[in-house]
């Protein structure tokens, strides 16, 4: 791997943060973590991540999508990976994933729990695309 890539990890669960950041740092990435939409928003003011990993159920039922949209508005070229423990159809506002204007607010979607390898691979794929 060439240079360190910076990943913003947003999840309201401390243990998911602990696990995912461990795995991603192990894989050689630089990880910044946020416990919610608000904290993520503050970070985004000054940091442009190479990738964002967003849990859908942060703060409110649909705030994950709101955050995804915010990231895309600020940094259109930053890929967004959504992780959720719900099947896609159970997520309220999932149809908003493409937004009313038809613009993508996420680039990939994985369901928790996720195997360590699968997470690292998904991240790698998004970073190299």
């Amino acid at each position: 791997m060439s240079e360190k890539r910076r990943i913003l990890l947003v999840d309201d669960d401390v243990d998911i943060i602990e696990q995912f950041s461990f795995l991603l740092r192990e894989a050689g990435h630089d990880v910044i973590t946020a416990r919610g939409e608000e904290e993520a928003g503050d970070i985004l003011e000054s940091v442009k991540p190479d990738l964002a990993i967003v849990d859908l159920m942060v703060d409110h039922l649909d705030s994950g999508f709101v955050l995804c949209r915010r990231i895309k508005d600020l940094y259109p070229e930053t890929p967004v990976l959504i992780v959720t423990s719900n099947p896609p159809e159970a997520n309220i506002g999932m149809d908003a994933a493409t937004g009313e204007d038809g613009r993508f607010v996420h680039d990939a979607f994985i369901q928790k729990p996720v195997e360590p390898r699968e997470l690292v691979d998904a991240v790698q794929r998004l970073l190299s695309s």
Partner: protein
Amino acid sequence: MNRPDKQQTIVVIDDDYVMRLSCSKILAKAGFRVETFEDGAQGLEGIARLRPDLVVVDLKMPGISGMEVISRTAQIDPAIIIVVITGYATISTAVETIKSGAYDFLPKPFSPDELRLIVDRGLERRRLLQETQRLEMERELLRRRFVTFVSHQLKTPLVAIHQYLDAMRHLGDVRVTADQRQEWIGRCLERSDEMLAIIKDWLTLSKVESGHLCTERKRIDLTPLIRDVLKALAEVAAAKGVHLAAELPENTYCVRGDRNSLSVLFDNLISNAIKYNRPNGNVTITGQVREGDVTISVTDTGIGIAPEDQQRLFDEFYRVKARSSASTSGTGLGLAICRRIVSELGGRIDVESEANTGSTFCVRLPACHEAAAL
């Protein structure tokens, strides 16, 4: 009468030209959009196309009868209100039309006022029906979401445990040190405890709901009951450096209820007052008897609750996501349980709070005036 902004449509079906004309005039003057048809076949075609709010139909017409128009209109849209006009109003025909789905009938001859009145009442009925339907749909949506929501809450700790175990299985000893492993195992245990707490609270909640928790209705003096709760929580409070104080004279705050559920109630409230407090903070419990009600207030000098969160506190699984309380664990069911218990006992619970200053939770219950049993 509150009339919707949108102009309402009325269809009039009658083979009598004069009747069509006069109904149409009266109703148009009252502000409705009116369409008339001279027989049942055309009328039904018009109903299917216009989707009117109300239909006025003559019972006796050549071709398709008024009775058939009633039943076929109900097939098109059961929410359309049907008023029947009839020249030979016998009780039996009236009963029959209403049985087949008409809202009401109007015997000929009738005055303009009579027509307007019956139409207004019919439309009011339609509004009520639609309102009930809307509430029903909202409740259904909430119920559907609720299942998703509860399963998410239950899944969360399991997913965390799964992630830890999976990492420990896949990453060798070199990548995960023995210390790291110990810490992770500790986290797994904590999360499984959390899972157990959710299930325990969930059970308590459903017990209150099904009436299996508040079973007894005994006279209970709240003072010793609260004293016992405080005793049980003394250690937790000391660990957090929170001072507990209660100034409650005995035999003053007596209610009728169930010892078990009242303990759960005050345990939840006082636990919260400790949990969402700060080091060196206070929790004060006071009582009041007024207008046949006993009010017990639990006041803390803790982090407080923002106005927008106050309304949702008593909802199942609702937890404030402020940074200040993000690190405290809990199921978010405690106050939902409190609300159910209090309403089961015929009382109410309210909150007053200011962010960063503190909160007061007031429980109001009907006082029990009977003297203590000897």
